Structures are given as C-alpha cells and as structure tokens.
C-alpha cells in the first residue's frame, strides 16, 4: 500500500471514521505525541478542578463544603494525577513530540511499542480514576502509606483501582523509556555524538534511565500491597511481624528518583528555550550534562530524607541529609549556567521565554525551601506541613508545569503547523504567574505557623483563616490563567497563525523541516557537524529550511518537499490496531483482579492473542515515495 507523503493535518480521505481509525492505529511518534499531549492536558485540568474544590473547603475555618471522606479522596487523586498522569508522562509527551526530530531520526526504534505505551497510559489512567465511579476513590494520599492502605484500614474499592492503575501505568512508563533509550542510543543522525545531542535529549535520556531503574521498585511495592489486599499475604501486617517502613523505603527508593523524573524534562526545555530566545549557545554544555548525570546518580541515594521523622536515628538522618545537600551543588550549577546563557544575549520576550524565565525564578525559590528540609532538625518542624506543600508546588508547578507551558508554546506549532496567540499567551503567563505565587507563597507561612497538610478542616483559633482565604483567591486566579491557555490552544488549531518551519529562528534539527513535519520527518537524514546543528547550518551555509522560510505556508509545501527522481526509498512502519488491543487486554486483566478471576482470564486471553498477532504482523509497509 502506498501512502501519500502526507502531513499530520492532511485532510482525511474517507471521512470521520477513517480519521478516527488512523489515530487509533497510528504508530507515528508525532501523532502519538499529540495523543499524549491532549490526554495529559485532560488529566491536568481534572486534577486542577479537584484542587479548586479542595480550596473551597479550606478557604474558611470549620467549613462544611466537603465531607472528610470526599476531601481525602480529592486530595489523594489530585496528587496521584499530577504526579503519575501529568508529571511522569511529561517526558513521554515531549520525547514523542520532538526527540526523534532533534536527533535526526525518522521515527522511534519500536513504533508499535510506542503506540502500546500510549494506549496503556490511557487505560491505566482510566483504571486509576475508576474508583470514583465504582464507589469511592483512593483516600490515603498519593504516597499510599502502608499499613493504612491495607485492607483493615482502607476497604474502599478505589484503593484497588489505585494499585492496579499504578502498576499498569508503570508498564507504560517503562515501555516508553526503553523505547526512547534505544532510539537515543541507536538512531542518532550521522555525526551526532552523545556530546553533540541537544540538552533536551540529554535531559530525557537521564529521565528514561531513572525510569527504568526506579519504576521496578515501585512496581514491587505495589505488588506487595496488591497481594496483601487481595491474597492475604502479610507484608504490611504489623501483628504478623510486618513492618510499615518497608513500604516507605520501597516507595521512596522509587519516589525520589521520580522527583527528578518529573523535573528533568523541565531542565531540558529550559536548556533549549533560553538559548534560542537569547540568541546564544547554552553556556557550559558539558557541565550541564555532568550536572544532570550527577543529579540522576545522587537521586538514588537520598530517598530516606522523606523519612527523617520516622525515627531512623542520627546516623541514618545524617547520611541521607548529606546526600540530599550534595544535590544542591549540581542544581546550582545548572541555574548559574542558564543565567550565564542569558547574560549578554539578545533576549526576545516571547511567551516561551517568559515562561522559561519564570520557571528559573520559581525553581530557585523551590530549591531553597528544599534545602531547608534537607536539614533533619528543620525538617522535623516542616515535614507534613504546608511548608512542604509550598516547596513541592514551587518545584513541580513552578518548575515543571511552567516549563511545560514554555515547551508547549515553543514546540506545539512544530506539530500542528500553527502558532499559539502571543497576546493570549501573555495573559496566560501573567495570570498564571501571579495566581501561582498568591496560591503557593503563603503556604510557606502557613506551614511555619504549624498547619499540617492533608487536614480537611481547621479551627478558627488556629489563626490560619486569613492566609487560607488568600490562597483560595490565588488558586482561582491561577485557574483563570489555565482557562486562557485552554482557549488559546483550541483557538490556534483553527485560527492560529501558520508557524512555518522555523518560527523562532531555532538552533536544533527539528526547525529544519516543515511544520507539521512529513510522516518520515527527514527527507534526507541530516549529517551533523557540531552542537546546535541547524543553527550552524543556517550561519555557515545559509540554508533555508525545507518547505519555505519562517513565514511559509505549511499547506503549500515547497519543491524541497517532493522527492526528486532517484531519491532514497523510505519505508514507514505499518499502522496497527494491535497495540490498542494489547493495552485493552492488560486493562481488562487489571479490572479482573479487582472483580473476578474470569475477567482476568479474558484479559490475558486478549493480551496473549495480541502478542501472537504482534509477532506475526509485518512491521513495515511499502515504500513511501519512491518515484515510479
């Protein structure tokens, strides 16, 4: 079957159903990236709405908006969603959107596995949230501390969905990580050595390395909990000799590298956006790479700083405090390098750069409060208070989410071919920035005033009412900013200004091809001679991007778009429905563990059938545009 050299937005040939079928069977990393993006955005909005409801309850002392049961479910699912369905897949979103483009590859190493990762992510997310519909979501906090998450203390079916959902999501995250690591190791364009890779690629490399070593540990902890809940094992049964610290250790052995899994994509985005908009190369490339490596390695040695108050004793506390404080050093190096990149540049105040600058600012604040709880005595006053809530929102919202906004304004036009509106973007930025600080800065003070986290109510005499009201107002301003963003996104799909192939005067290879790129990405695999490959080409050889200049019309691909006679033959991976079926099988089996063994059998049957079909199905389709 010959496939036209189409783009992501080419008109559907056979109507709606055929369009849907194309998306369901797609194995193109760019389309999968968009699927990831919209799904993550949906979960982000859902988790945000949950937070807004929580803030209503906390706005006043002794409020009765929510019952404690509902409050606990809402805050648990807010945290779980933000960590596992927004932050963790951030790496997959951006890796799918741009990683192959940045390293000059035509696709990922295993396109069908990539599709599988997405579908498992989708079904895992649904499974995780299914508790709401089945009679109550999980309510032990996103950390799911045992023994409270075991059956004697948490009977709710939401806990079962939470455990199965996270196991399934872990499979998706790991599959994605394996796939991209192979892609990075094995599919770089000729000349792109490791030390010539864009820093975004390096950041994602480190993220995926962390994923493949951290997620198995979480999976084991979840399996213990699952077995305890369903099959009567005794891992966390204190009466039988079980120990509650086992969960905490396994969870945080995963959980702290997870923190870097969440924040490193942000570092990558900053390291691309800041040089582009300062018109300067990144300052200290090698130290940036070294710093990320150090963060990744140290990231595995700090987990018990989440357990300073559990009574580990001075030796344990000292050791983990030491390793934690060491992390401040590579982090400081990164911040200074970004500053030095801006220094002496020509900074264009476009929306991606505004978000990037704000990210650095907020991340500094989050990092400094993190430095405080690295000191065990101080942590004993801050642990489990709103100070900690403030800290991780500064690093995860101020750091990761703000950077994701920068990344979306920067790269989404590459995939959709249309820019987001600059004016709306600035509204989005300022509302978000002001709302964010109004929401999360006072939380530092609340924590210092002794307000524990995860409480659904507080008495008036505690003196926390005024600040909480301020926070709630801030949260709604923040929400307004997000609404503007959502509108901007939808608007750009129809009315956005055409992006052209290189709207930002970019530095890396993705800007050398049309927006949206053709299915095969690169007409001809580029040969790389240094860092910032595309920038060098533009400077030295005065090359115009393929498909027109920066204001070119994406719907009228230029001459360079058509394969000339004698051009190489490109084989594309064949679209396949099997990844979707396989993911469905896994999800059905997951539901089966909760309800009935027969359903497990059904799910496994679907899964095995899909695996067999996968093995038999030829992975490739015919040539794309060999000139007959």
């Amino acid at each position: 079957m010959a496939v036209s050299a189409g783009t992501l937005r080419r008109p559907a040939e056979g109507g709606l159903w055929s369009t849907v079928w194309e998306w369901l069977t797609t194995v193109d990393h760019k389309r999968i990236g968009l699927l990831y993006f919209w799904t993550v955005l949906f979960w982000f909005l859902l988790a945000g709405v949950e937070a807004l409801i929580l803030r209503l309850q906390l706005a006043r002392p002794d409020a009765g908006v929510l019952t404690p049961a509902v409050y606990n479910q809402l805050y648990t699912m807010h945290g779980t969603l933000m960590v596992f369905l927004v932050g963790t897949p951030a790496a997959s979103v951006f890796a799918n959107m741009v990683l192959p483009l940045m390293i000059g590859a035509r696709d990922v190493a295993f396109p069908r596995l990539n599709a599988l990762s997405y579908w498992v992510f989708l079904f895992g997310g649904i499974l995780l949230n299914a508790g709401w519909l089945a009679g109550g979501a999980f309510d032990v906090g996103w950390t799911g501390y045992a023994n409270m998450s075991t059956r004697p203390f948490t009977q709710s079916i939401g806990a079962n969905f939470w455990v199965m959902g996270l196991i399934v999501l872990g499979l998706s995250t790991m599959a994605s990580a394996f796939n991209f690591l192979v892609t990075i190791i094995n599919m770089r364009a000729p000349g792109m050595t490791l030390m010539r890779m864009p820093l975004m690629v390096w950041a994602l490399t480190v993220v995926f390395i962390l994923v493949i070593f951290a997620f198995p540990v979480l999976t084991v902890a979840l399996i213990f909990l699952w077995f305890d809940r369903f099959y009567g094992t005794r891992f966390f049964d204190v009466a039988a000799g079980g120990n509650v610290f086992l969960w905490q250790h396994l969870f945080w052995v995963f959980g702290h590298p997870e923190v870097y899994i969440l924040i490193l994509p942000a570092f990558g985005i900053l390291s691309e956006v800041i040089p582009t908009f300062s018109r300067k190369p990144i300052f200290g490339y090698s130290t940036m790479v070294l710093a990320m490596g150090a963060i990744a390695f140290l990231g595995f040695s700090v987990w018990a700083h989440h357990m300073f108050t559990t009574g580990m004793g001075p030796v344990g506390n000292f050791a983990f405090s030491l390793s934690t404080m060491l992390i401040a050093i590579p982090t400081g190096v990164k911040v200074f390098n970004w500053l030095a990149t801006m220094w002496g540049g020509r900074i264009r105040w476009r929306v991606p750069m505004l978000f990037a600058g704000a990210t650095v600012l907020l991340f500094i604040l989050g990092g400094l409060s993190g430095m405080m709880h690295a000191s065990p005595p101080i942590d004993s006053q801050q642990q489990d208070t709103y100070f900690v809530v403030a800290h991780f929102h500064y690093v995860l919202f101020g750091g990761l989410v703000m950077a994701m906004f920068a990344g979306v304004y920067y790269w989404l036009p590459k995939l959709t071919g249309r820019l987001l509106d600059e004016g709306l973007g600035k509204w989005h930025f300022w509302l978000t920035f002001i709302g964010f600080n109004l929401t999360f800065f006072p939380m530092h003070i609340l924590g210092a005033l002794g307000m524990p986290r995860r409480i659904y109510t507080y008495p008036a005499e505690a003196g926390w009412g005024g600040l909480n009201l301020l926070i709630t107002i801030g949260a709604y301003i923040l929400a307004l900013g997000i609404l503007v963003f959502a509108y901007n996104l939808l608007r750009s799909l129809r009315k956005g200004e055409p992006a052209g192939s290189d709207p930002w005067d970019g530095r890396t290879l993705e800007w050398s091809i049309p927006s949206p790129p053709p299915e095969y990405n690169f007409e001809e695999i580029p040969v790389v001679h240094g860092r910032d490959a595309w920038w060098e080409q533009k400077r030295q050889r005065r090359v115009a991007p393929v498909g027109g200049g920066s204001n070119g019309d994406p719907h009228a691909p230029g001459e360079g778009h058509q394969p000339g006679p004698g051009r190489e033959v490109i084989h594309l991976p064949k679209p396949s429905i099997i990844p979707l079926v396989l993911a469905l099988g896994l999800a059905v089996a997951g539901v089966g563990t909760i309800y009935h063994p027969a359903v497990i059998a059904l799910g496994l049957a679907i899964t095995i059938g899909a695996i067999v079909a996968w093995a038999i199905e030829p992975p490739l389709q015919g040539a794309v545009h060999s000139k007959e």
Partner: protein
Amino acid sequence: MRIPPLLRRPRWVAWGISLFLLLLTACASPQNTFGGQGDQARTILGLYWLLIGAALFVGVSVIALLLYAFFRFRERPGAGEPKEVHGNTALEFAWFLIPTIIVLIVAIPSWRTVFRFGQAPPPNALQVQVVGHQWWWEFRYLDYKGADGNPLVSGNELYLPVGRPVALTLRSADVIHSFWVPRLAGKADANPGVTTRLTFTPLETGTYYGQCAEFCGLSHALMRFRVKVLPAEEFERWVQSRQAYTLPPLAGEAEKGWQVFQARGCNACHTIDGTNARGIIGPNLTGIASRDGVAAMALPNTPEDLARWLRNPPAVKAGSKMPNLNLTDEEISALVAFLATLK
C-alpha cells in the same frame, strides 16, 4: 535619602502595612514553629534563622541577577548579534564552588544538631509513653503508678513539669501517626509495631497546641491535643490527685449520669480512675471536666458541645470508633452533668 518611587504612593504603603499586619496576626497562631518554648524547638529555631538567612541571601541575589539579565539584555531594535560564548572553565568552577560553600555553611550546624538530638535521654528524664490511636492520643506516665499499680494515663492532654527533661516513647495502636507540638519540639512519628523516641525539656509553663502530623485516615484533621506545662509543684499536686482519685460525691443529675454511664456501657470503653470503669478502647476520662476540649479537641469543652458529641459521635468526627448509642435527651444531660464533676 531619596524615597523609592514605589513608597511615594500612599496606596502601596497601606497595602504593605496591611500585609505585614496580616503576617503579624498570623504569628499569633498558637501552633506556630517560632515559639521556642522547649529546648529542642529553641535549638531548631536558631538553625531555622540561619537557613532562612542563607536562603534569603541566595534567593535575593540570584533572582536579582536573573531579573537584571532579563531586563538588561532584552532585545532592542538595532542590537547587534550577541557573542557566541560556549562556556568558561573558571566561571563554571565557580558555579560549583558557590553552592558547595553555602551547603557547608548550613550543613555543619544541621548535622551537629542531628547528633545532639540523637543522644540518650538524661537519667532524670520523665518517662512518658505516647500511643496514637485513630483519632486520639493516650499518654502513659511510666514513672507514676496509679492506685491499681498501673501507670497513670491521660487522654489528649499531656501534663509536664517545667524545666525537667521528658523522654517520650512513641507507638501507635493502628496506623502511623505523628506527635507534634511545634512550640516545644519537632515532630516524631508514632508507628505501629516500632518504638520511636523524642526527648525535650519544656522551658516555660503554659498550654501548647499539638496535632497529629501524619495523615492517619478519615478524621486526621481532628486528632489534636494539648500539652500543659506546669510548675514543678503543681505537676506533683496533679500526680498526687490522680493517684488518689475517687469519684466526687454525686447527687441529682450527676448521680443519674453515673448510672447511665454504667447502664449504657460507657465503661466498656472508657476508664475513670478509682471506679469500676476500666475500658481501654477509648480515652481515659478522669479529669475530663478540666480539659480544653472534647473528642481530641474536635469541640470546645462546653456542656452544649459535649451534648452534641454524645448525641452522635460519628456525625461530629467521621469514622469515630465511639458509636451513636441513641441516647435520649435526658440521658445526655445526665451524662453531661456527671462528666462535669470529673475535675
């Protein structure tokens, strides 16, 4: 001195002052971490100022640099192409050195404190066992035996003599809790199956607010308690009164309430020292009339609130182990009258 333009506008000054006042009133919070009325909290506070100082210094200077760069190097029409700087070994080494120095400044005092807090409690320390329950606190004074030979027990209020070190051993009866009285000491988790320790010396008399800090289920928010630090002789008097505790002479409503207490099985869960009420499922009720609140400080200790609690405990405190006994109004008012005599 030149007044900065911002401060020349009265509106901004007014805003600034009201924000400052808001912060000040907020500091009146009875559970704040800046009190330092215990030796541990005081040491932590010293460390706290050091870290806040270091953080402010780093934060203000780096953010100032960032903002300077952002504004100073903003693209202007006619600006030339910036110089392509790829790095600078000396500067990059400086990036490495600056955080290292700052880390050392805050780390060394922190670690010294860690080992100081880790020392064994002094031999004269008051031994108290703390047991966390869903959702109330039990305090067992191991040094003082009651009339029955068991340690004295109090519920949700911990009595301590001022100036004497106290060595807490913490455990939990069900899930993980965390014992936290911010003005006296940092928190320590109370775990099921494992014992943790917390040693501190209260330095000033007074009532201190405490709260469970580790999420422990449905009514985690209502697991509050008080620490009452008394002058030494007053503490001794409290101990003696508890050791020789008997029911006060009862009459009228209160007498009726004691009958209801036994008839409706309250004694199956609650203890009142010196009586046949020996239940250990709920908090010890001896001296409940002098407590600051009821149901682990979920409600203030007034007759109306006590009555509300007795009428339907799970409605006040979701998931409460104390069931709704469907008491009649007469039974409730009798019980309230009876409990009011337990000073």
